C-alpha cells in the first residue's frame, strides 16, 4: 500500500525517518556491520522479555519458553528481534513501514523451516493493523522505535488497542539528556560510528518520565524501568541503574476493570539467565 508514504497527521510513521532506513535495508543481517549494536542488544533484551514473561506465567516449558505467546514486533526492521523470539516458541507478527525491510526479513527467515512458520511479516504501520487486530496480541515489543515515531501518544494508544487486557508492552529507547546527546549522537554516530550517522535526532528522544506519563494516562501500568549501557570496546550491552542514556520499559495494559495502578517501578532487574541453564554447566 502506497498511502502510508504520504499520510502524516494520521500516522505515527515519519517519512523522513523511513528514508534513512531505506538505504541500509540490506545490511541488517551482517552481525559485524552497521547493525552490530542491535545484534548484540539481543543478549539483554531477549532475556529481559523472556524472563519477565516467564515470571508472569506459571506453566511453561523450558525447552519452549514462549510457546503459545502471540507477539507483535513493531518496527521489526530486518527481523533481528523477531527471530530469537520465534525460536523461543512465540508466534510473532513483525510489522515495519518500509517494504525493503520486510523483504529482507522475509527472505532471512525463509531458510529456517521452523521460523518460516512461526513468524509473519507485514509491511505496514501500526495504525493500519489496528482495525483487524483489536486485542489480538499477548505482547507488543517496540524496541528502538519510539525515538523514530512522529506521534508518540497515538502510537501508545494504538498499542493499547491491539493488546489483550493484561498484555505486556516492552519498549527500549534512548533518553533525552545531555549525556545521551554526547554519547548517543556525537560519540556513537560521529566519532565511533556505532550507529550510522543521522539515524537519531536528539529532539525526538523521550525521557522515561514522559514515556511513563503517556503510558499511565493511556491505560498502562508501568512495571519496570531499567537503564542500559553499551560498551563499544567489547560491543556488549549491560544493565545499569541510571537511565540517562538507553533504557528499557515493561508496562502492562490494565485489565477489563480499566483501573490503572500506581507506578511501581522496580529498579532491580534480574539480568542473570534463568537458573535452569546452570544444569548443563560442569
Amino acid at each position, binding site marked *: 500500500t502506497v498511502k502510508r508514504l504520504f499520510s502524516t497527521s494520521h500516522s505515527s510513521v515519519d517519512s523522513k525517518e523511513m528514508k534513512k532506513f531505506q538505504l541500509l535495508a540490506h545490511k541488517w*543481517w*551482517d*552481525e559485524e556491520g552497521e547493525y552490530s549494536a542491535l*545484534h*548484540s542488544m*539481543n*543478549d539483554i533484551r*531477549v*532475556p529481559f522479555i*523472556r524472563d519477565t514473561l516467564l515470571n508472569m506465567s506459571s506453566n511453561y*516449558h*523450558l*525447552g*519452549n*519458553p514462549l510457546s503459545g505467546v502471540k507477539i507483535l514486533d513493531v518496527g521489526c526492521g530486518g527481523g533481528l528481534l523477531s*527471530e*530469537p*523470539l*520465534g*525460536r*523461543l*516458541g512465540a508466534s510473532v507478527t513483525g510489522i515495519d513501514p518500509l517494504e525493503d525491510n520486510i523483504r529482507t526479513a522475509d*527472505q*532471512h527467515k525463509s*531458510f529456517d523451516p*521452523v521460523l518460516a512458520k512461526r513468524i509473519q511479516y507485514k509491511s505496514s504501520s501500526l495504525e493500519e493493523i489496528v482495525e483487524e487486530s483489536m486485542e489480538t496480541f499477548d505482547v507488543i515489543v517496540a524496541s528502538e522505535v519510539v525515538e523514530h515515531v512522529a506521534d508518540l501518544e497515538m502510537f501508545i494508544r494504538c498499542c493499547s488497542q491491539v493488546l489483550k487486557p493484561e498484555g505486556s508492552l516492552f519498549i527500549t529507547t534512548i533518553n533525552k539528556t545531555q549525556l545521551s546527546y554526547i554519547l548517543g549522537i556525537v560519540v556513537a554516530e560521529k566519532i565511533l560510528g556505532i550507529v550510522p550517522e543521522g539515524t537519531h535526532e536528539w529532539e525526538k528522544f523521550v525521557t522515561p518520565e514522559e514515556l511513563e506519563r503517556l503510558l499511565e494516562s493511556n491505560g498502562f501500568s508501568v512495571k519496570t524501568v531499567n537503564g542500559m549501557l553499551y560498551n563499544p570496546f567489547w560491543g556488549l550491552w549491560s544493565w545499569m541503574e541510571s537511565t540517562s542514556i538507553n533504557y528499557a520499559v515493561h508496562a502492562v495494559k490494565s485489565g477489563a476493570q480499566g483501573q490503572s495502578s500506581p507506578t511501581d517501578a522496580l529498579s532491580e532487574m534480574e539480568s542473570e*539467565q*534463568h537458573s*535452569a*541453564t546452570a*544444569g*548443563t*554447566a*560442569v
Partner: protein
Amino acid sequence: LGHDIHFHDKKIALLEAGPRKEYDRMPDSYSNRVSSISPGSATLLSSFGAWDHVCSLRLKPFRRMQVWDACSEAMIVFEKDDLDDMGYIVENDVIMSALTKQLDAVADRVEVFYRSRAVRYTWPLPSHSCDTSPWVQIELADGRRLQTKLLIGADGHNSVVRKEAEIKNIEHRYDQSAVVATLHLSEATDNNVAWQRFLPTGPIALLPLSDTASSLVWSTSHEHASELLAMDEESFVDSINSAFWSNVNHTDFIDTAGAMFRSAISLLKPSGTAVRQLPPSIAKVDPESRAMFPLGMGHAIEYVQHRVALIGDAAHRVHPLAGQGVNLGFGDIACLAHHLSAAAFNGSDLGSLRHLLKFETERQRHNVSLIAATDVLKRLYSTRLAPLVLLRTWGLQATNALPPVKVRI
C-alpha cells in the same frame, strides 16, 4: 546436548564412521584401548546419565599415581588425602557403549548415522546474500544431504572438518609411537595405583584394570616399538619388568646429587619425601592385545568459525604422558554445551560466532598451557644429559615436597 532441556525442540545429527557399539556385559578379556578419566570428566558423563552405565559395565578407580625417573631416584606421588578417587581407568568400548545407551534415550532429538562419512561440505558465504542457504550443507557418501546451522567437528587429529574449513593447525610429529597391551600381574593386589616411569626413550605407564590386570602404555621410539611388537611374549614381559625395575640408567653423580637434595629437603620439610612403593611385576601379556600407534602434538589456530566448532583431538592433540587427552576433549564438550545451551535459551542462531568465540577463548586459555606443559615435559624427560637430568630430578623432588604445587597439578 540431546539431554539439555533448552534443546528440547532442536534436531541433532551425529555422523559416526564406526559401527554401533553397545554391550550389556563386557567380554572377559580387556580391550587394549583404555583412557584415564578424570573426576571432572566423570561428572560430565554423569550429568546426562552415562556414568551409571559405565559403572555397571566395568571401570577401575585409582587412588594414587607414582611417577619417577629412570635416571635418578627422583619420584613424585599424587594422592588424595580423603578417600576420593583420583581418576578412573575405563576401556574406550565401555564409554562408547554408555554413550550409545544415552543416545538411544533421546532418539527423537538425536539421529545417529552409523558407518557414515561426509564427502563434501559446502560452507555458507560470510555475507548474507539472497539465494544461497546460509547454513552448512553436507553430502554423505551414500548420497544423502544434510544441512545444519552449526557443524561440530569431533573427528580426531586428522580432522576433515578442520581441513575443509581451512583452519590452520600447528602440528609436530614426535619420533615416538605408543605400544599398548593388556597385561596380567604376577600376583593379585589392590592395584589402585597408576605407575609411570620416565625412561630416556619415553615414559612407560601401567594403568590398573582390575586386581589382576593392568593396561600398558609405553611411548618409545618407532624402532623400539616395532621390536616390542615383534618379539615373543616372554621377551615382551621381560622388557616391561626391566623397564620398571632396572637402575641401569642411574649414574653415581646423579644419585649422589639427588640424595643430597633429598636430605636438604627433609631438613626443611620433614614430611616432604614420600614412601616409594614398588610397582607390580608382570607375568604375562594377553595374546593379540599388543598394538602400536604413532604419537604427535597438534593445536588448531582457531577452534571456531562461522557455523563451525572443533572439539577434542580435532582441536588439539597431546602426548599420552599426562593421561589428559580425552579429558581435554570432555572439558571442551562441557564448555561448548554450556554456551550452546545458553544461546538456545536466548533464542540465538546456534551457528553465530558471538557465543562460539566465548567457547574458543575459554578453552584455548585452558588448553594451551596444558598442551605446552606436556610438550615441555616430554622433551625434558627424553634425555640422559646430566644437567637436564639433574634439573628434572631436583625439580621433581621439589615438586613432590610442595603440596600447593602438587594440588594444582
